[in-house]
């Protein structure tokens, strides 16, 4: 009896603590919004995750160094990286960069990883989907009420 009570209590405590842990950050992973809010550490390596902003990827003259912007739609942060990019690194796709904040507020990455989402579909479907989205966007410009 005592054993069961103790067991249940301990499990409850564990669950509460785990839930509490999700409020915080245990893996040094920050969104651009958090970086903008100065939540990220200054002199320590951490990770930034988000989308590569459309049209932001620029290669410098040396051919190795790339500049791009990572965004979580609310805020964005410029990233500098020199090195090989993964195949899946694309504008509009998920990315995780590891590095430090430079003095100018840009993020100097030592490693850039692509994050794949859970969607798998053939190219035609992807094409159709993006077309549909574009159409929808176009329509919503014409009649904002219709989209709702």
């Amino acid at each position: 009896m005592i054993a069961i009570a103790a067991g249940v209590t301990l499990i409850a405590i564990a669950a509460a603590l785990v839930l509490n842990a999700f409020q915080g950050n245990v893996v040094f992973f920050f969104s651009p919004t958090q970086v903008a809010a100065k939540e990220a550490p200054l002199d320590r390596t951490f990770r930034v995750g988000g989308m590569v902003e459309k049209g932001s990827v620029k290669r410098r003259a040396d051919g190795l160094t790339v500049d791009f912007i990572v965004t979580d739609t609310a805020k964005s942060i410029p990233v500098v990286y020199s090195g090989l990019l993964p195949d899946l690194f694309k504008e509009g796709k998920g990315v995780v960069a590891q590095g430090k904040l430079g003095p100018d507020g840009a993020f100097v990455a030592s490693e850039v990883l692509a994050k794949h989402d859970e969607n798998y579909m053939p190219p035609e479907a992807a094409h159709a989907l993006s077309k549909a989205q574009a159409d929808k966007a176009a329509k919503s410009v014409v009649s904002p009420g219709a989209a709702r």
Partner: protein
Amino acid sequence: MLQPFFLIVRRELRLALHRKGDALNVLVFFVVVASLFPLGVGPEPNQLRAMAAGVAWIGALLAAVLSLPRLFAADLADGTLEQMLVSPQPLMLVVLAKIAAHWLLTGLPLALAAPLIGLQYGLPVDALVILLASLLIGTPVLSFLGAAGAALTLGVRGGGALLGLLVLPLFVPVLVFGAGAVTATLAGINSSAHLSLLGAFLAVSSLIGPWAACAALRVALD
């Protein structure tokens, strides 16, 4: 109810004082080495600061893993374990007492010594506090899970290496989050998430560890 608990704890402590005290050994060693480490590595303040938590936590892991093979082995060899099983005390109480003694001899001294090392390594006060807290919450996890591993590999050929295989993977998350708490504090991030996770580990391991240890001891003495 608690009287036999303290009886066993007291005896373990007394034995550790008399015996070729491996536990004490680890502590002495750890303090000496941690103090000497800057000599070997070179005293760059920033670098030392970043390492402090890692050094302390690795010391804790070491103390735990290396003392574990002998947690029950001596008592098995000289018949004390047998006597504990046939005594009217609930086995769970005996196991809890052994775990408590193990922690008092390895985890606690290390946790208490760690702030000293942190000071030497130039940790700021808030990080020192978190280091102490993380060790105080985290080291019992090592004792709880370790006791289960020690009991499972008792009297088994090649038990020591097997014990390492069993418990080290489970210890790694504790090390990571423990050291992470300090690093987060150094980086100016709130470390309560790390500590909560350690707390959750503690709650779960305090449930599983003693249960598994009891069951395994019965098997080992069969």
